[in-house]
Structures are given as structure tokens and as C-alpha cells.
């Protein structure tokens, strides 16, 4: 199982790439309101990048149900394959 610190670091890189902002700093409490450009339209791009990076697939109810980065980290911690 991946360590939380490692997941956050790798996620941070993905967020920086998807939202084109190198100064981005995500925490467990980060929501879509805190990140410029994270809306329903970019969500699919973000999900696609995360799935590719960690080698697993989110389920539909997770994709539409995740409330913050914390929940995202928990799912990744459980299911990541790389």
C-alpha cells in the first residue's frame, strides 16, 4: 500500500499538470472550489490522468461522489497498483 505522503506528492504533480499551475499545493481538505479550473468539464481529464498514473479505475459512484482530495487519497491508497 502506498504511503499517504507519496500519494499526495504524486497527486500534486498531476494537479499541477492538469490545471497548468506549478504553484498548486493540495491537501486532504482541498475541494474543487479551491482549485482554479477544476470544474465538471476538467474532472474527466483529471480522473483519466490519476487512473493512468496509479494503474486502477475509479468506479462511477466514486467519480461523481468524491467530495475532496482526502476521499480521493483514500481510494487511491486502497486500490493503486503502481
Amino acid at each position: 500500500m502506498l504511503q499517504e505522503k507519496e500519494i499526495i506528492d504524486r497527486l500534486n504533480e498531476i494537479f499541477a499538470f492538469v490545471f497548468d499551475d506549478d504553484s498548486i499545493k493540495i491537501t486532504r481538505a482541498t475541494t474543487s472550489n479551491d482549485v482554479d479550473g477544476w470544474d465538471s468539464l476538467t474532472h474527466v481529464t483529471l480522473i483519466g490522468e490519476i487512473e493512468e498514473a496509479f494503474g486502477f479505475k475509479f468506479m462511477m459512484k466514486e467519480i461523481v461522489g468524491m467530495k475532496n482530495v482526502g476521499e480521493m487519497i483514500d481510494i487511491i491508497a486502497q486500490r493503486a497498483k503502481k
Partner: protein
Amino acid sequence: MLFSTPNFLYVFLPVLLAIYWIFYKNPGIQLIVLTVFSLYFYAFGEPVYVFLMIGLVLANYYLGKACAGDGESEQPLSKKLLLCLAVAVNLSGLVFFKYTNFICENINALTGLSLKGISLGMPIGISFFTFQSMSYVIDAYRGTVKVQKSYVKLLLYVSFFPQLIAGPIVRYQDIEEQLENRSWSINQINDGIFRFALGLAKKVLIADSCDAVVNSLGNVEEGTFLLGQWMKVIFYTLQLYFDFSGYSDMAIGLGKLFGFDFPENFNYPFASKSITEYWRRWHITLGTWFKDYLFYPVLNSTGLKKLARSLMKKKKRKLARYLPNLIALLVVWLATGIWHGASWNFVLWGIYYYLWLAADMVFLDDFRKKLPKIAESFFSHGIFIVATFFGMALFFFEDNTLSNLGSLFGAGVCGFTTTDVNAIICQNLWLLLAALVLSVPTVPKLYSMAVRECGITPAADRVIKTAVSIIFLGLATTVMVAQTYSPFLYFRF
């Protein structure tokens, strides 16, 4: 059986309510009573196809059990295949009855063959109960609902008469708990009766009157006139809204009488500022159905995610943002179009709305936000009214669509207006004004203002609503008795 007939209102409903409440201490028997009466309600109009529905629910009952997931882990291939089978079983009935002839006609036109098609009528409400069955089986697969162990409860979920024929498209999770336990209170019954009476009045007093105007405008003997054509579309738009939202009100009201809470289906769509908002307020349950079971699955499909990734790699951020969403939206709107009817003009109608939604997504929304407030309001409502008007015209002019659309711009008409057209409009000016005022939330706003300013107590509020219910039921009954058959528009879908 129609809600707006004396038979339903003064025989079927009171008898059912009496039996239902006799067994108020035994929810199990209540469910059986509701199921039997619902099947009778359907069999009254469809004595043969009622068995199709019973069989379809049986298939979903077993397939739901077989493909159910826990919602925690990814499903194995066998369950994925079972889900595909379930979706195929559900869609096969719909496709066979609704689209066989359309498919044959198109194959014939393309290949010169002469396939005959079928001469069976479409089972009433099939588009609605198929979607309800599918939502159950997909949710069971996704693990978002528990598998229903009782066949009767699943049958009641699909066949429950208030929502069986023209929606709202109730999701299994909406009434999952109420199939087990239902609350009951005088307030809930009062609300139910008020809601039903409101819906009945919308249908019988307004929608049917608008229908009469549309018909008489269509029967003007001197030919087609510009004003007449515009008025036809306007009255038809109002008819469709009051007919369909009235039906939903009646369904929701009836649900309350039996302790069920159905989802809302309309939220004053004509008060919208954009087509995107309009489709969140009109036929809401169909929109959310397509969003959850078609839009998200397509958007999150491997293909579209790969597309987004490859665009990101090429630094085409804007395309990566919009293109996958635009593709998923197109799939949804082709499906929404064809869901409404097996003909090309419904496909055209779907594409028409798709273009507006795509424009909202890509630039119109951003543009609106940049305008000063007053200009934004005028611009938004103006564009919205024009867009809806032509959308409705596409829906209304099912035959000779293009020449009829042309006539709205004066092509091929005999003139601006004539005495007959003027007479019809003058006679129905009050109806037009009343319907326009009631199609936006004027009355609820005024009433809540009155409640605040004049201090109307909850008790007084109940008395007012009861009085209004009695007046509406009385007026509607008088009209119903005098009237002949008046079907609901959404029955044909």
C-alpha cells in the same frame, strides 16, 4: 385509464384509497393491494401488454440479483456481461415496439428492399417503465442500491400506477425505503390532494383549452397565415407544459396519498435564462436519468479518457477540456431525441438542443457573465425565448417540418393574418395571458409574500389550500363530464 376522467377520480381512486387505508396496520397487504390495482390500471388500457411488463420485471428481478455488486470493488467480467444482457433485454422491448418500423423504413430507403415492419401498437408507457427497470438493474450492479428480494415490491416499483405511464421517471433508490415503511399524516394527505387538484386543473382547464385553440387555428379554411402559425406554436408550447407538468403534479400528489415521495419533474422551465438551465427544469427526471446512466458512463469511458490524455500531451488544453464533454453530450442528445419518437425530426430536434447546450458550454455562459446585469438579463431571456420557440416548433411540426418552419418566416403563407385567425386569438386572449402568467412562478412568489406580510398561519394556509383544492376539483369535474376523450400528450412516448 386516464387521471382526468370521472371513472378514475370517483370510482378507481376512492375504492383503492379505502381498501389501502383499511389495511394501514399491515404494510405488506397494502403493497399487494397497490400492485393489484396498478396492474388493473394498466390492463384497463393494455390487456395484453400488461404481461410484457410483468415478464420484464421478472427478468430484471433475476438479472438484478445475478449482477449485483457491493459498490466497493470492480465487478468481474461475468457480472459485466450479465449487466449488458440486462440492458439488452430492457432495450429490446423498447426497440422492437418503438423503432422496428422506423428502422425498416430507413433500410428500405437505403437499399431498395421492402421490409414490412410490424403492425403492433406500442405498449403505453414503455419508454418510461423500461427506463425505470434499467435504473434498478444498473444501480444494483453499481452497488448503490440493495438487491430487492421481493418480486412484488420490484413489480410495484415499476408498475405503480401514478408514475407508470408518463413519469416522473422514479429511480428505485427514490422509493427504496418507502417500499418498506411509509409515513402517514393529515398534512401529507392534504398536500397530496392539493397537488393532484392543481395538476388536474392544469390539464383540464388550461392544457385542453390550449389544445382546442391549436386545433381551431389548424382548421382555418382560408390557408396558412403568419400570425396563425406563430400562435399555433405558442399555444402548443403552453399546452405541452401544462399537460405534462400537470400530469407530473397529479402523479406526485397521488404518490403522497399512498405515502410515497416521488421526485419533482418540473421547476418552472420557462423562467430559465438559458437552454442549459431549461433542461434542468423541464422533465427533470429524464435529464438526470440520461446524466447518470449515459452521460457519465460515456464521458468516463476508456476511449474518451484516452482522448483527453492525448490532447493534454499535445498541450491542447482547451480541446482536452471541451471535446470529451461535447462528444458525451452529443450521444445523450441523439438518444434524447430518438427517445421522444421514432422519426428523423426528433433526431433533428435533439441535435438542435445539443447545439444550444454546446454553445452554452463553450462560450455563451462565459459571455453572459461578462455582460452588465440588466443587459445580461435581457440577452439571456431573449435568446432563451427564441431558442425554445424554435425548439418547440420542431417538436410540433412533425410532418412537413421544413415547409412549416419556413412559414414561421413568411415562406408560402397567404398573408399576415385573416379574420378567422384574429377571431380565434381574440376569443382566447385571456387564456393566453393566464397561461403565460402561470407558466412562470408569479403565483407562488405572490403567495409566499402574502404569507410573510399578512402573517398567514400554517392552519390558515391549510384552509386556503383545501378551499383551492375543492374549487379546482369541482371546476375540473364540470369540464370533464362535458368533455370527450382528451389524452395526455406524453402518452405516446
